[in-house]
């Protein structure tokens, strides 16, 4: 009990010390809700002393309320910063670890050599070519539809239920699990083309990429100021003319950013191509122009993401280095392309004219 009253006294003293003017006016407690009611009664005992010492020492020292506020602020900042750190640090640590483990095999020959001896030796050329074809074809299919879809959402669609339905469709398409996309590919594209093939896998990837391209295009278009369009309409241009000559040229950078980002996603996906066209192993010529164009669209192909999965779980006796090497090539590919996209966006933002 003694300790409690002691603390209450100190608190009251501090309060008074902090607000000398208020204390002199005789309303020391009225606007400090944090101080306990009991403290108010004891103020009369020590008030005079506290006033004379604390007030002279530092009239601006923080009140308990402010101290608590500051303490909470510091704790919050620390905790939140810590959570941001906890999010980023493991990623960086893991990336570093992967590169260190893969370091001995990394080199230009690892990229250019085919997998050999049941994939326990050699490099990643065949999967790399396969991934390139899958991504290129899926992009060719998805980019026009996606960009026009974004144009529709931003330029044509009104503020009504239909637009909401389309937007919800985009969200849902983006949310469909990747393996369900794979099932769709099996049920639709593989059934159509007869067997798992580059084309079927690319179509599956294209459907999966669509929502991302639509969303990013829509965002890029919506950043073009309305005044640009209005000026163009005032000249008598139709809606399509406005889009073609004003809106699209002014947002091409943003659209490109989104499309490039989509490349990285398509390159990394495994589940959708698992049963629609990716093969465990396929021989690709080692030399000559044929090593660049080894497939017809009806063949299956290897893919880098699938290759990593195969190396890690299906093949026996692969050295760690080769596995880590494949992982680093895949990550390096996605991060490099992604950095291009981020860099492009920053560059465009820095020279934005409006």
């Amino acid at each position, binding site marked *: 009990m003694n300790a409690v009253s002691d603390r209450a006294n100190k608190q009251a003293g501090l309060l008074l010390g902090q607000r000398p003017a208020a204390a002199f006016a005789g309303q020391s407690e009225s606007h400090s809700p944090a101080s306990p009611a009991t403290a108010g009664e004891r103020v009369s005992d020590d008030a005079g002393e506290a006033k004379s010492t604390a007030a002279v020492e530092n009239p601006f020292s923080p009140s308990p309320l402010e101290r608590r*506020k500051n303490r*909470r*602020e510091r704790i*919050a*900042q620390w905790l*939140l*910063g810590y*959570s*941001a750190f*906890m*999010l*980023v640090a493991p*990623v960086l640590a*893991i990336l570093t670890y*992967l590169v260190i483990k893969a370091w001995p095999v990394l080199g230009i020959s690892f990229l250019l050599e085919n997998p050999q001896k049941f994939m326990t030796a050699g490099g990643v050329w065949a999967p790399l070519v396969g991934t390139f074809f899958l991504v290129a074809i899926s992009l060719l299919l998805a980019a026009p*539809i996606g960009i026009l*879809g974004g*144009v*529709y*959402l931003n330029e044509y*669609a009104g503020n009504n239920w239909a637009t909401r339905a*389309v937007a*919800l*469709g985009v*969200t*849902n*398409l983006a*949310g*469909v*699990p*990747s*393996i*369900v996309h*794979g*099932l769709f590919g099996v*049920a639709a594209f593989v059934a159509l083309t007869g067997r798992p093939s580059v084309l079927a896998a690319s179509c599956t990837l294209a*459907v999966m990429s669509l929502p991302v391209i*639509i969303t990013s295009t829509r965002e890029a278009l919506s950043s073009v100021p309305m005044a640009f369009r209005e000026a163009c309409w005032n000249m008598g241009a*139709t809606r*399509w*003319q406005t889009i073609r000559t004003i809106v699209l040229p002014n947002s091409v950078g943003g659209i490109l950013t989104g499309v490039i*980002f989509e490349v*990285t*996603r398509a390159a*990394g*996906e*495994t589940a959708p191509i698992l*049963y629609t066209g990716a093969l465990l192993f396929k021989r690709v010529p080692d030399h000559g122009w044929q090593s660049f164009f080894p497939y017809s669209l009806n063949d299956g192909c290897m893919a880098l*993401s699938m290759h990593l*999965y195969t190396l*890690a*779980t299906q093949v026996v006796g692969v050295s760690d280095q080769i*596995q880590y090497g494949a*992982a680093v090539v*895949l*990550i390096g590919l996605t*991060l490099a392309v*992604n*950095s291009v996209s*981020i860099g492009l966006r920053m560059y465009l933002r820095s020279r934005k004219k409006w």
Partner: protein
Amino acid sequence: MNTASKTPARRFSLQAVVDAAEPVIEWLIRLCGWSSILFVFSIFVFILIIASNAFGKLDWREFFFSTEWQPDSVVQPHYGTLALFVGTLSVTVLAMAIAAPLGLGAAVFISEFCGSKVKETLKVLVELSAAIPSVVWGFVGYMVIAPLIIRYTGASTGINLLNAGIILGLMSAPIIVSMSEDALKAVPDSYREAAVSLGASRWEIVHRVLFPAAKNGLLAAVLLGVGRAIGETMAVLMCSGHAVNIPHSLLDPVRTLTATIASELGESPAGEMHYWVLFTIGLELFALTFLVNVIADVVVKGVRSERS
């Protein structure tokens, strides 16, 4: 499109052709706009068509409420997906227990607490970590996290619920960060200014003003993370341990709906019950994620109608 097109008259007529094509182009644009709905619908229909082969013969009670998953049994195959469903659920819950606090905290930090340089750096890093392919996350869980779990917990296997939860949490955190940062950004600055003018500290602004104002957006962000965690395939396939059972501890291996499809579709010949049941599971997954996404959308819409 030959050399003649360079003359003014020719160019004019080309222009005329382009303009005359406008209605066609507008219809094309409309079609592309509706394509996303078309694809969502056709995904549902195509999977339903194949799955429906199983509907007559499937014992639905067993499908939903039995833990016996023995699709390859010659004598009496069982198609109970309860254990798989619980596996998906437990992995998702664990992932969210990691990703939601971290993601929300990081979003608040990025949006309210740090200077513009730190902010840009963090945003780029979060974006990059969102771009890491799921198979690489799976590889990391399989090769890096699993030995760590064995060393520090003494578990018999390192690929288990805990591993999958950690990996999935790290994977779905970036999407939570970027979505909830958008939600915080959508709160008008006048709210912040009003709070500052009343003497609120930054934490008080976040706690008393931003959280109530952006709560639907933040909830939607977490829900999108949940949707992503439910649908994640490769990482879970490689890290979860692949044993069909209801987990009793964090260190039990589990198996999810997605991983089951991914691992067994290749082994089951088309046109048989097992194959059809896998498509039925796909349908179940589709319905689950659809539901989560629609709820997220409704939650966000609530915020919009309140503001307007």
